[in-house]
């Protein structure tokens, strides 16, 4: 029985995954221009700063669906019992043009459309690791 692959944090991203383990979504804030991004980049994509502190700051995970796909065959181990499942491309309300891709937890038969509002949910991979996921806003 294969387990699903887990994320491996690095020095920069460790705070993100530590917060995620506690079901808190964070985005990377640039100390120079204050822009929020994910993933964090070596050079700020907004101000070009190469010399800055990145802090991961909690944000609300609400957003809108920009696209989706139903995964019926996975190329990765550990998904055999999960397929078919839906992945959604979500633009967060908390930061302009920041988009996350996560599991959609309302099932493959839930009605989807571009622009539908979703709320953050979490998938627990194990006791320490959780991934941001989404559900339709009730």
């Amino acid at each position, binding site marked *: 029985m294969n387990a699903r692959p887990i994320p*491996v944090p690095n020095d920069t991203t460790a705070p993100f995954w530590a917060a995620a383990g506690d079901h808190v979504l964070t985005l990377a804030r640039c100390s120079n221009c204050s822009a929020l991004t994910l993933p964090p980049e070596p050079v700020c994509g907004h101000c070009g700063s190469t010399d800055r502190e990145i802090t991961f700051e909690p944000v609300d995970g609400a957003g809108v669906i920009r696209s989706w796909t139903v995964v019926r065959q996975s190329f990765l181990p550990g998904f055999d019992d999960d397929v078919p499942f839906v992945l959604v491309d979500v633009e967060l309300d908390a930061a302009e043009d920041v988009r996350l*891709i996560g599991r959609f937890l309302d099932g493959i038969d839930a009605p989807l459309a571009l622009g539908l509002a979703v709320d953050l949910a979490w998938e627990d*991979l194990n006791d320490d690791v959780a991934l941001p996921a989404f559900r339709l806003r009730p």
Partner: protein
Amino acid sequence: MTRSFRARNEVAIVGYAHSKIERRSDRTLGAITVDTTRAAIADAGLSVDQIDGFVGSALFPTAGDHLIIDGVSTVSPNWLARSLGVNPRYAAGFSGMGQIPGSVALAVNAIAGGAADHVVLHRALHNPKGRYHGSSRASFGGEQQWTAPQGYFGPLAMIALPTTEYLERYGATREGLAAIAVEARKNGSRIPWSFWHDRPLAAETYLDAEPMFDPICQYDCDIPVDGVATFVFTSAERARDLPHRPVHVSGYATGAPTRSRMPLHWPLDDIMDGGRETARRLWAAVGVGSDEVDLPQLYDGFSPFIWFWLESLGFCEPGEAHRFIADGGIDSDRPDGLPVLSGGGALGNGRMHGIPQMLESYLQLAGRAGDRQRDANVALACHASPHLGGAVVYTNDPG
């Protein structure tokens, strides 16, 4: 500001060779590449010792766990030069997206700049044993830490998201995708070296297939193969003394990343905004517009790329490409059809990564297309996505 291309029509393709396209060859990729390249050099009326430049891309386009071994699963320009016994003045690999237009640019610039006189461009593609994109990894660091744990992995997931956006925004359907695959396979079935020779695709077969990543099904994807193509470039001046009609490079353009995204995340707006910029640069470089192109060979590694390129290049208004195709707009058997897949493309040949588009442009403009010969003077060959890939314009009438 984009200037016209200073080396416009100064460099030409003067010969080529193409291997059989097989699902899995019983020969090593490097051996096929050396044979194909020797044949291309002879086709150009040259000898191996006259070749002083080697360019290409050695990308092995798999998301899976396969080993990358030069000469076996990929072939770099340096490996090819050494195996032919050449110590070239110029050897370079293109590492961006749009590997074929990028490699053509290296060849043209090397010759126009005097770094080499006769340049070989090759592309060697391999289908490894096992599942092409399959991975058994238990963890992902680097950029894939943001996506793979959720199950967002591999190029089918990548293309599925913008395709859903296109369907939902513009009312396109799987029937619209089927029409692209059917046209590619129709043309590919007529090409003797194609993996799909004599095997056209019925729309019903497409529509009966369950998607793998909705709405993308297996017939939207080019099939992994073993295959090699080589082209020989030289200056327009030297080309006049060689046996075949030269096909001149009028100019090229490549896209560039616009903004930071999750890995393999290509929102439709990124593709189209970037694609329009690629097209703007292309038309400025070559000095023609879409209405002067007789033979636009559009990239189809995934079928929806045909929609994205038709609209990026200005052959259709945004959102209209699927209707244009439904009305027979890309039927290459119709006198008024835009023959965007006349060479069979990747869907009709196998995963040859932009080679089918370049080859059809060359064969038609050189007058070497045999039974498939069309009347054409200006061709365009695309590769990859409009926002990150590129395109080259060719002519047999440099004026």
